[in-house]
């Protein structure tokens, strides 16, 4: 572990110091091992990377950070970048405005809406699975995990699914800069411009219509109000942009780890085929065990002592939710994948007021993917002996490639 003492020009109260960039790509699974190692060695660290920030590793502190938004602002969610070039709404908005924005979009992603959308999402999923099934092999990431959540998200937002080809590279380029890598910043800026221009045109096309278009998110925003006034263009663009970025990349990442797990655990594949009623609990366990958010950042709003550390106003903190979700202090058999785990109170969709808006959509997509894939391709394995790689923890962990192979019966 690259933990070594560095000169730090402030009093750290004996807190261990590290100097670590979490962004670089690693062999698959390394980030969870690192989070566990850090968690068991100390509840808190000071990382001298970038401007310097605190790292909290255990379940209790991570939960308290999420649940104390008055002390931990979402103004920045990347601790290495306290003043980001983007503004996500409602992600980076604090009380009292945050809930007003959430009220506008919560119904759009509610379980009821997902019930209504389920059959069309299932049809999309089935078509993609049947398309790859006959080939006997695919790179699961590009062949399915990128395509299904993108098309499902565009479909529930009322956007032409053929625009998926535009969104996929934008999302890739955005996250190349999200982890703080200066080499990725230019691509990140260009991707943001591309997404904004897309939405500017979409809003322009819908503006001035008498009522909202059925099932059309951009049109819904044009007809929504905030404190009895219409939303501004800037607000609508900030909302639509984050929905694209959060909706496409996260589910793609979780699908990758879910299907890597199924490819390497034939007993779990069999169990889910024989007992499909376990699919929801298996999905929740994936969200706990394979939490793709390495950590969540927040900005400290006032000087305070927190879990034994003296924080100052303006400090950044990094809550390692990936490690917290495997903390043996909070879960029994925390380091095991328990497919029928009961009472799984994981924080895979975060906690507190910023609970993932798309949680119900993501959960539904993951369940549908398992159901439809196992129905057509019940047995499959990883097609390579080479080590799989994952993108760094600066953004979301995600498998860069997952080659799968299966027998095709004619």
């Amino acid at each position, binding site marked *: 572990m690259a933990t070594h003492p560095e000169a730090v020009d402030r009093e750290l109260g004996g807190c261990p110091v590290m100097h670590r960039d979490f962004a670089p790509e690693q062999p698959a699974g390394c980030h969870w091992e690192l989070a566990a190692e850090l968690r068991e060695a100390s509840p808190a660290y000071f990382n001298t990377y970038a401007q310097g920030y605190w790292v909290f590793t255990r379940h209790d502190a991570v939960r308290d950070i999420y649940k104390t938004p008055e002390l931990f602002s979402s103004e920045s969610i990347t601790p290495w970048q306290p003043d980001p070039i983007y503004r996500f709404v409602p992600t980076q908005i604090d009380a009292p405005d945050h809930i007003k924005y959430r009220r506008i979009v*919560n119904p759009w992603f*509610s*379980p009821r809406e997902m019930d209504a959308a389920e059959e069309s999402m299932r049809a999309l999923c089935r078509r993609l699975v049947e398309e790859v099934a006959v080939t006997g092999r695919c790179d699961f990431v590009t062949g399915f995990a990128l395509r299904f959540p993108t098309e499902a998200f565009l479909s529930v937002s009322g956007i032409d699914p053929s625009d998926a080809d535009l969104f996929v590279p934008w999302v890739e380029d955005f996250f190349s800069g999200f982890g703080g890598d200066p080499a990725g910043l230019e691509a990140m800026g260009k991707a943001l411009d591309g997404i904004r221009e897309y939405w500017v045109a979409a809003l322009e096309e819908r503006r001035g219509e008498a009522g909202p278009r059925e099932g059309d998110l951009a049109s819904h925003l044009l007809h929504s109000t905030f404190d009895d006034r219409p939303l501004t263009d800037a607000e609508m663009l900030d909302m639509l942009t984050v929905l694209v970025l959060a909706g496409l990349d996260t589910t793609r990442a979780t699908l990758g780890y879910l299907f890597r797990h199924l490819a390497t655990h034939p007993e779990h594949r069999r169990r889910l085929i024989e007992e499909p009623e376990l699919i929801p609990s298996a999905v929740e366990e994936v969200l706990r065990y394979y939490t793709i958010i390495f950590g969540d950042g927040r900005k400290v709003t006032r000087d305070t002592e927190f879990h034994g550390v003296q924080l100052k106003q303006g400090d950044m903190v990094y809550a390692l939710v990936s490690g917290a979700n495997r903390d043996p202090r909070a879960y029994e058999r925390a380091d095991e994948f328990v497919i029928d785990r*009961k*009472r799984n109170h994981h924080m895979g969709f975060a*906690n507190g*007021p910023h609970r993932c808006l798309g949680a119900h959509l993501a959960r539904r997509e993951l369940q549908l993917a398992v159901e439809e894939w196992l129905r057509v391709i019940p047995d499959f394995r990883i097609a390579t002996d080479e080590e799989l790689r994952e993108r760094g923890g600066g953004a979301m962990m995600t498998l860069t490639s997952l080659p799968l192979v299966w027998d095709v019966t004619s």
Partner: protein
Amino acid sequence: MRLAVDGTSCMGHGRCYQMAPDLLSCDDEGYVTIRDQTIDVPGDQLEAAEDAEGTCPEQAITLLP
């Protein structure tokens, strides 16, 4: 047994009404409908109620005797 929901803590994760579909349901935004309320738990729903309490990521659900 009774089940109480702390409305300030509930964030609409949707786990409770997934665990106890015959006891709890959701509103248009995805929150449980009985925020800041206490309900009686019928005898055949005791286990479902305990599952809902243990599954809530916000610890918003409390079971009362």
